[in-house]
């Protein structure tokens, strides 16, 4: 059964309205429905003496309906306590003041604002790169200033610890490539060409790309989150006041470590990818491992491997720089770490793909 929060007692001239029960946040919605049905054709006497419990939501509702009734009819309020009166006065005073409503932006304003943000973001990134390069060349001139311990720590974490996932990804990609092209090549009886297809595509394109994407997701995000958390706890400010420049102590070790670790990982990915292709060729086309390796010797020129390898340091720089940059951009709230980590991974993966396309164009133009 529905609770009754209002009682009526009507005669010819007036309506006696009595509030009952709990006028609290939990029940205001029901009370409001009942209040809306109150007829306003006669003078109203509103008795509050039967209210058992009330809070500010209940009082606000009372204020609202009191004003409404006042507009259409006479009203008299009786039976209120001191406490109710005090809260009424407090809330009445506040509700009279202007209500704050946040201004809604138009679509044009939002487009404009986002454009300016993207522009400023770009400017900040250029500034970051400037700092980074100045620190980079300074340490090349003064190798004493390189933080060897931190660099080695990051090589271990972002390189060595990623071996399994990178190897497995490359192995599976090699396997899939061999399977897919195997089906087509078999139709033409060109079974042995599977070796060309797998080895060249893995070393030139897929090895570096898969490795870079896995590492961008794995270490790029970690860099952003680590540096971002330090930003929030003011550890970066603390470092600065102690004379520990974050570019030398946080960014460069990560960049150097990545530039060393990524090419090594690509080398490993190349091996695992070709091995994956080898396994698929054996299973599907019946090419023995010996045959595969003989053919590999003939078709895989060193230049393919080198051209793939050359992308390594570039991808590494992009991933580490973007990861660190996004980390340093984190502002003083926790939501910002999530946003910037997402941005870091999205940006670095996109940049890796874009630069890979750029390399393709350059290699083709140079007829390599």
């Amino acid at each position, binding site marked *: 059964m529905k609770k009754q929060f209002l009682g009526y007692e009507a005669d010819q001239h007036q309506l006696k309205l009595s509030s009952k029960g709990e006028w609290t946040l939990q029940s205001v919605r029901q009370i409001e429905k009942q209040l809306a049905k109150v007829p306003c054709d006669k003078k109203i006497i509103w008795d509050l003496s039967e209210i058992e419990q009330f809070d500010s939501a209940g009082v606000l509702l009372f204020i609202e309906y009191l004003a409404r009734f006042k507009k259409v009819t006479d009203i008299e309020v009786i039976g209120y306590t001191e406490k109710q009166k005090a809260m009424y006065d407090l809330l009445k005073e506040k509700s009279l003041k202007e209500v704050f409503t946040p201004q809604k932006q138009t679509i044009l304003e939002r487009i404009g604002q986002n454009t300016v943000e993207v522009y400023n973001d770009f400017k900040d990134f250029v500034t970051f790169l400037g700092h980074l390069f100045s620190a980079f060349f300074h340490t090349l001139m003064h190798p004493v200033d390189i933080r060897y311990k931190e660099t080695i720590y990051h090589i271990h974490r972002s390189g060595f610890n990623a071996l399994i996932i990178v190897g497995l990804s490359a192995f599976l990609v090699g396997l899939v490539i061999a399977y897919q092209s195997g089906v087509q090549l078999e139709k033409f009886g060109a079974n042995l060409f599977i070796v060309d297809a797998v080895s060249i595509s893995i070393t030139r394109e897929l090895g570096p790309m898969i490795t870079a994407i896995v590492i961008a997701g794995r270490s790029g995000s970690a860099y952003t989150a680590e540096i971002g958390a330090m930003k929030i706890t003011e550890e970066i400010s603390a470092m600065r006041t*102690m004379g520990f420049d974050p570019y030398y102590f946080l960014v460069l070790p990560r960049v150097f470590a990545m530039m060393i670790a990524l090419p090594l990982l690509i080398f490993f990915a190349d091996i695992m990818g070709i091995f994956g292709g080898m396994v698929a060729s054996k299973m599907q086309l019946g090419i023995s491992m010996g045959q595969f390796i003989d053919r590999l010797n003939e078709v895989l020129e060193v230049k393919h491997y080198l051209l793939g390898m050359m992308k390594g340091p570039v991808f590494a720089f992009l991933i580490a720089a973007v990861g660190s940059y996004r980390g340093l951009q984190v502002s003083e709230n926790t939501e910002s770490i999530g946003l910037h980590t997402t941005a870091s991974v999205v940006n670095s993966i996109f940049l890796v793909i874009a630069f890979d396309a750029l390399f393709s164009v350059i290699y083709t133009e140079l007829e390599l």
Partner: protein
Amino acid sequence: MSTVIKAEGIVTRFGNRVIHDGVNLHVERGEIYGILGESGSGKSVLMKEMIMLLEPSAGKMSVLNQTLNNIGFDEAQALRRKWGVLFQFGALFSPLTVAENIEVQLKEYTDITKKMRNELINSKLNMVGLEPSVGALYPSELSGGMIKRAALARALAMEPELLFLDEPTSGLDPIGARNFDELILELRELLGVTVVIITHDLDSIFNIVDRMSVLADKRVVAEGNIKNVLQSEHPFVEEFFKNKYTQKYM
């Protein structure tokens, strides 16, 4: 007495928002100097400009006889070794233990032996009233009061001439806060450091601060010892100092 910090006509703008519009103040050697003001009046920003975390948009800031505008890299690095900073929430390096936190600068900037470093770490811990065993703990294992003490110990690691404290007693219980005040007084007696302190804490203001400046309306509305400041008739000073809570100090 010589001047340790001098700010002349400092203007700070973030976009269109003006934080400071001509702030002037000076801090003398050996004093405990308070920076007061309502929240949003740019106290922390001003301190960040003193410790080179931010650059003012205009005006001249000098610290320990070095002008910070266009300071060279080497001079800036040298200056940074002469001060210690206590951040509001400690800002201890979370992957390092308390002892390692105190040790980092010693390790980086001096060639003293490991044994000597350990002795220094213990003496700093002792100075701020922490047990030597706390040195082995990580910042996440410490209470709020211990974090502040440990961060103070770190700030003292390089035997600074100048100490910056950002709301050192905020978030401490009343007794802890008074003990911290005592500690700051003791350190000043013991080491003769100059202390710049951002605070809202009336007890600290009336008991340990020698001179202070009050920031309001984008500038310093009152500077001097508590008597000088109380003479100001600026509305913020009236509201902050002349109310029922400050009666007991008068």
